[in-house]
């Protein structure tokens, strides 16, 4: 495993830091940071305490103005404002001292973005509040303080934090990165944050109607079930933990009647892999509201059913094809064809294939004297049908990557095992699969993430029915937004899915890293 053993520290030369780092007095840099932070904190305090807009009936605070902006279709302004403020604040502290150029740029851009609120309100005051008499001290001071925060880093660079080179070593590298960063910010970060803004509002007749705070998130839960659900999840976690520990201990202890520190570390390391998914599934089924609990449960069923089947079939086919057989090339090409089909088209195609009266699948089953399942009119069979279509499309993906992994395995190890008399099964069990473990986890991760998002196959095949039997989470989420125009609720649902997928992905990444850094090396 030579390629896995080169994970030690990278020499400084390789990191391209051969040039001496400029010596920057820490006190000057910290003064800049503190002043910027103080200005931004002052903005927060001022806009909380002082009126943002003056009105004959009394002052209007920034929160209310933010709500008005959002309701009038300019929700991007407050979103950009507070996001910019947070970015500027974080930038004051997260960058190392020698990255002063990008730090200054980020603080300035963040502060200028935050100035969008006072600027926009000032320019559209009478549109927002027809009877307003002027901008209040809250926004005026915020404008001034944000302006100060925007120029402070540059002022510091020129005065109390002056060094050579002025902008830090290799500052120009950020100029190459900046377009990409702005691109990601504009098309990924900002929409995500704007979705959060959306999730805090109710919609009516296709547009924002009122601020509802956390109500859209509360609506995800069934309040009466939360205490019992949490207690049940805790008990389930404990039970699974105990079972994993017991089985792990026995598995490690039995062969050599020994259980050392390394064994304990390995067993404990596997606890989250079993506990976290089980707890998530349990909580989803017992704490979320109806029908979200049902949608989440059937989504887990789909992910588990489809991905596990695809993994088993894909790896099996890859093992079969990883040998000299006649027509191997064309066969591999043909096997990958389903990946190129459009999933929605597959859904419609499958509708014809699984048609219950005279459809080809039932016709074949009938001609063999077998039962003809109600593929589309039974809730259980409809789930099976959607899983089968997904398996048909994505097994080749598993197959391709698994085959590539198999072909990159060191043949000398396998040949040595064969020379030592290992059978094919023994080679598979003790050499091939352990060496393939990292890549198998990676395939599992990719397929799991993708499966959580399934929508096109059920949309074409079952429209989510019968009942809600195949209305998987993404379809439910899509309908909430696009059919029922509950964009706020849909945004909250999307964040719930994001949270769950992030937890599971983190878990899987941890597992993959563990395998690479530990099991892989040991293998």
């Amino acid at each position: 495993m030579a390629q896995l053993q080169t994970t030690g520290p990278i020499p400084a030369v390789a990191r391209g830091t051969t040039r001496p780092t400029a010596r920057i007095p820490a006190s000057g840099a910290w003064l800049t940071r503190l002043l910027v932070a103080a200005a931004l904190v002052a903005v927060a305090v001022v806009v909380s305490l002082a009126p943002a807009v003056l009105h004959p009936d009394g002052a209007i605070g920034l929160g209310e103005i933010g709500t008005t902006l959002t309701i009038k279709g300019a929700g991007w302004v407050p979103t950009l404002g507070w996001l910019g403020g947070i970015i500027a604040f974080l930038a004051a502290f997260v960058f190392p001292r020698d990255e002063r150029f990008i730090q200054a740029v980020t603080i300035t851009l963040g502060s200028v973005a935050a100035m969008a609120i006072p600027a926009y309100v000032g320019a559209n005051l009478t549109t927002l509040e027809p009877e307003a008499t002027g901008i209040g001290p809250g926004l005026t001071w915020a404008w001034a303080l944000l302006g100060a925060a925007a120029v402070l880093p540059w002022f510091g660079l020129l005065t109390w934090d002056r060094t050579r080179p002025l902008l830090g070593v290799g500052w120009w590298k950020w100029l190459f990165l900046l377009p990409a960063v702005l691109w990601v910010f504009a098309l990924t970060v900002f929409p995500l944050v704007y979705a959060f803004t959306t999730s805090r509002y109710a919609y009516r007749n296709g547009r924002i109607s009122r601020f509802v705070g956390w109500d859209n998130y509360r609506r995800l839960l069934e309040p009466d079930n939360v205490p019992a659900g949490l207690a049940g999840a805790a008990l389930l976690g404990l039970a699974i933990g105990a079972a994993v520990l017991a089985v792990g201990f026995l598995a490690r202890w039995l062969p050599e009647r020994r259980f050392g520190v390394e064994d304990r570390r390995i067993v404990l390391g596997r606890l989250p892999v079993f506990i976290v998914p089980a707890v998530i599934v349990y909580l989803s089924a017992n704490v979320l509201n109806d029908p979200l609990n049902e949608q989440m449960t059937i989504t887990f069923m789909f992910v588990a059913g489809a991905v596990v089947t695809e993994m088993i079939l894909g790896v099996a086919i890859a093992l079969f094809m990883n040998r000299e057989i006649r027509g191997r090339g064309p066969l591999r090409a043909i096997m990958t064809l389903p990946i190129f089909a459009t999933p929605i088209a597959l859904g419609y195609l499958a509708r014809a294939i699984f048609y219950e009266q005279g459809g080809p699948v039932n016709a074949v089953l009938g001609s063999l004297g077998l039962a003809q399942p109600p593929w589309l009119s039974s809730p259980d069979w409809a789930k099976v049908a959607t899983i089968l279509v997904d398996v048909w499309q994505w097994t080749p993906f598993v197959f391709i990557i698994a085959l590539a992994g198999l072909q990159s395995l060191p043949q000398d190890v396998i040949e040595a095992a064969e020379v030592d008399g290992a059978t094919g099964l023994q080679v598979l069990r003790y050499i091939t699969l352990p060496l393939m473990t990292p890549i198998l986890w990676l395939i599992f991760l990719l397929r799991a993430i993708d499966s959580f998002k399934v929508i096109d196959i059920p949309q074409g095949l079952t429209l989510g029915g019968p009942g809600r039997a195949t209305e998987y989470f993404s379809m439910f989420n899509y309908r909430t937004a696009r059919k029922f125009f509950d964009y706020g609720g849909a945004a909250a649902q999307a964040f719930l899915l994001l949270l769950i997928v992030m937890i599971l992905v983190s878990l899987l990444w941890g597992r993959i890293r563990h395998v690479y850094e530990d099991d892989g090396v040991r293998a």
Partner: protein
Amino acid sequence: MDMRTAKLFADFAAGHISRRTFVRRAMAAGLSLVTVGQMLRAVPAAAQDASPAAGGGAPVVAQPGSGDPAWAGKEITVQAIDDSVLIPWEEVRGEFEAATGARVTIVADPIGEAFPRLLEDAATGSNRFDAAMIGMWWLGELVAGDYILPYDEFYADDSGRFPSFDVEDELPGMRALRQYNGQLYVVPYDADGQCLYYRRDLLTDQAHMDAYKSETGNDLAVPRTWDELKAIAGYFNGKPLGGDAGEGNGISMHLKVGGQGMFHFMSLSAPFVIGPENKNLYWFNPENMDPLVESEGHRRAMETYLELVQYGPQAMAAWALGEAWDYFLRGNAVFTYSWGDVAPLAVERNAFVKGRIGTSQLPGTLAYVNPLSGEEYQTTEPNLVGNTTGGSWAGVIMKASENADLAYYWLALMATEEKQQYYAAVGTDGVDPGRLSQMPPDVVEGGTGSIDAYVAQGWNPEDANEYVRAYYDNFQNPNQLPFLRIPGTFDYWTQMDVRLSETLTSDVTPQDALAQMAQDFRDINDRLGVEEQLEIYRGSLGL
């Protein structure tokens, strides 16, 4: 122009002769190439493109250059669903452009995406569309959001600036859908309502009549109540009906979630709840917006619905509209109840059931229950209730349109009697009859149309007469299932659709399904605001 030239031009403009024939006859008549060229340009594009199909195209109503000169060079964008009802719009586009000198861009969106796009366009202020073809359940959001324009002012304009039509020409049930708070919002076009289609050949077959009599003690006839329909469907279920499925079924329905199955329940349940003593209470209590769908009448309807489904193939649970129609048209079911497309499609496709189809108003009940008071009313004659379930696709003018008058011209042109008589008789375009001018006077009281329009399209006259009569009875009925026209209608109906499907495919009891449905309705009310919903609900009922 002399008479011969004028007739030649008119035939070509109406699409009765092809371009090639037009040019040949024009030359034979001694017209110069320059003159022929001018005439070709003047004729609407649709007419020029019309193929000399049997029956010809729709009559030309707007003569070239007859529109307001101020419209020349303007452009409007109209949205329509990408479905059969789009066909006439495409056909008439050329006529509109030739008459007004304006240009119309038709944006055809898939039916599932059309409303979200229209609403987004209006709510975000993009205002790309000047007019749109809408389903009536969109009306709640469009009116409450103040996105569409009442057209009373244009309608009242009798200067000849706009093509004329009569809103009173629509039958009362349909007419009520087009208005909101006493203002005209929707320009008539399609008319949807569900009627019963039955196999006339089977119900009048002497052998079956005798067998049915001996089996049940009753005469075999067109069912007047849902109980009668169940009995007849049960009798025929499993018997060969002449279709290609071998053993036929009592009924064919579309019950797939998302396949408009909830309309079946709405239409069926109406006479269990609505009657002379209760004309409005079906969906919500108009005092507090509390859902009424848990009532005894709804429960009885649900049980009848579940019993009825037993007389169709199990696969129906996954059937969308087209599949249910197809099964009936191929002669495999005795009954289906659906929109006005079924009989025209039988003609259009020359289906097995052509000449064998009877149509009648949907059956009723001998008792209905007021959902609010719980009081039951017995009737001696079947309590028949009309319905306007479905889209009744028709045009609205967007409030932000800068060419609202031109947009109205477009919609009014489509609404003229001449166009509507033609399109109602054609099966492929999805425009169904709901107007007196589409019905002959010897069949319905007050009718001003002719059965010839139907016969010209290949209809069997008896089929056509029954068909027209059934829709007249349905829309003329003073008792109508109230159409839900409030924000969130699609949400309410989707929950109904899902709960119905669950009841059909799982162990959920009718009572539980209705209770869940009511809870779903309450949740939607809470989300959208009970007070706001109540106000617009009352407005939609004219209260």
